């Protein structure tokens, strides 16, 4: 039987493709981690374990829990959609068309609201003004509920929400959106507790001027075996040290049980 003749040029091209693509990826990683631009220390309240049971994964991935401030024009205790109010100028600067930014939309064209998504940058603050504002807002809801003689179950529910906010909910908030990172970096006043993250923002169906954060690009972090040798032995309470590199891509530099962390809970 005649042998099938393999095209040697195609084979060489395939080998070069594997080599080059891996080289480019690893070079990118090396460039990103060449110098640390920012660091931040978070806790298990902000990054919790994500067990990928569906794939039977033996590695540990941590998932980010974060919030956006509760809108002032609503009675809701939570901002469920991770939405942030933006100005029309900011909206257009992020690449959204006229039909996607409410204030630029004439009333007779309101029904032509287009749903769009664009890359943007989000200023994140840890244990900052937005978190404490949410606590104050929830406290005022409780006082208002008592003054209005709402039923006990309702008030108990609000108290439970406050307990969660104080004890277990994430203290990491996304507070401002912009079309480029530098604008937001200028606003950072507490370098160890604020950072800028790349996100995917989209408007809602009503073009209300609020943009929903549809994806945060640092929402999952792989925990290397070098950081946590026993991937199944994550402490119940811990602090997590994260570094951001030249390209804004993060990596975990340390996990410490909570008793060892100086800044835990501060």
């Amino acid at each position: 039987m005649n042998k099938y003749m393999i095209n040697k040029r195609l084979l060489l091209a395939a080998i070069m493709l594997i080599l080059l693509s891996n080289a480019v990826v690893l070079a990118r990683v090396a460039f990103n981690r060449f110098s640390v631009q920012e660091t931040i220390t978070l806790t298990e309240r902000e990054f919790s374990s994500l067990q990928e049971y569906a794939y039977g994964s033996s590695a540990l991935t941590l998932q980010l829990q974060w919030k956006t401030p509760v809108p002032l024009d609503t009675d809701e205790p939570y901002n469920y959609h991770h939405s942030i109010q933006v100005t029309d100028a900011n909206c257009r600067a992020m690449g959204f068309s006229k039909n996607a930014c409410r204030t630029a939309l004439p009333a007779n064209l309101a029904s032509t609201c287009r749903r769009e998504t664009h890359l943007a940058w989000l200023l994140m603050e840890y244990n900052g003004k937005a978190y404490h504002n949410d606590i104050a807002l929830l406290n005022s809801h409780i006082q208002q509920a008592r003054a209005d003689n709402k039923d006990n179950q309702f008030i108990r529910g609000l108290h439970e929400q406050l307990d969660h906010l104080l004890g277990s909910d994430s203290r990491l908030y996304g507070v401002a959106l912009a079309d480029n990172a530098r604008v937001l970096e200028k606003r950072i006043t507490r370098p160890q507790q604020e950072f800028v993250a790349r996100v995917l923002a989209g408007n809602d169906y009503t073009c209300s001027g609020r943009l929903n954060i549809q994806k945060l690009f640092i929402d999952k972090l792989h925990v290397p075996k070098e950081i946590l040798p026993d991937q199944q032995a994550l402490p119940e309470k811990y602090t997590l040290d994260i570094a951001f590199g030249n390209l804004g891509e993060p990596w975990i530099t340390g996990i410490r049980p909570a008793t060892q962390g100086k800044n835990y809970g501060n």
Partner: protein
Amino acid sequence: MQNNTTLSRSDAQKRIDRIDAFYHELETLEKEHLFSISPAQQDAVKHYHQGVIASLVQQFDVDTTRHSKNLSLGMQIASFIGALALAASLFFLFYQCWGYLSTTLQVAILIASPFITLLLTVIIRSHEQTGYFSKLMALASFSCFVLDLSMLGKIFNIFPSYNAMAIWCAYSLLLAYIASIRLLLVVAIIFFYGFIAARINTWSGIYWLSMFEHPESFLLPALMVFFLPSLFSQRQYHGFDNVYRVSGVIGLLATFFILSVTGDSRYLPWPSDSIGNFYVAMGFVSSAGCIYLGIKNIWPAVTNAGNVFFVAFLYLKIFDWWWGIMPHFLFFLIISLTALLFMVIFNRLRIQLKSASAPGVMDHE
């Protein structure tokens, strides 16, 4: 003896089928006492055909009987299922084990696995004619490469990029041509669609993952894929030209269909109804064009794809026009009558195609 250097596997199989048909027809003519050849001629022809068959089997490993054809089909199906299962197995194996490995070892395994499987693909392919076992290994190699880049992205928390689709497209294409595997060509075309659509969206200022919300970006790559075999001959690769054309037709007409239903366009500043009607018209014209090209160039797969979409567009419009304004029994009666009409049209097209692909019979009347 015929020079086999310019033949493809498809040509070889057609020759074998013609020889088989010749003997069956000769037997029938002899039984009807219409035609016979002398024993000396019969021996000479048989001896000649045996030489041709032996040569073609040796070079292309074609099927010489219906039984072996059925077995080949069974092997193709088994090879496809085996390839998918092996790819899934490799994927889950890595997920199961990677938590126990250091980062260096993870990276080393990820980079080495596509190399090793590529090498195995080449070794197996150069020692077999059928290509079934090498198809299995080639798909495994492709899965390893996809796993390689996607897991590196996960390990080092790299932001996702549509450039990965271009790389996977290129690798799948290379494997398809190295081992002559149509399935990997289809995979390459799918990634090509995704990459070009993502690029077009990025140029338009839209994030690339939103490409499915803007189907118009799939029109250009569909046209490119359709016309590619007209520019670069695929004769040496069995069935590749069909894959390109049918993928192009499906990409183009499916996009028109979706746009005609949604009536949503990024580029046309018209009301939704007008956009829907425009794309329905484009769909009708394009599917009729595909039917015409398919008949003219004897591309049955393109003709069939054009037929399917023409009917789909027609039923879409019939539903739009009449579903709300007539009794349902009448609506379905009209559907069945149009189906009868299409059966008549397709029968005529079938007759035309048959006569176009068998000129010898017509010429000798």
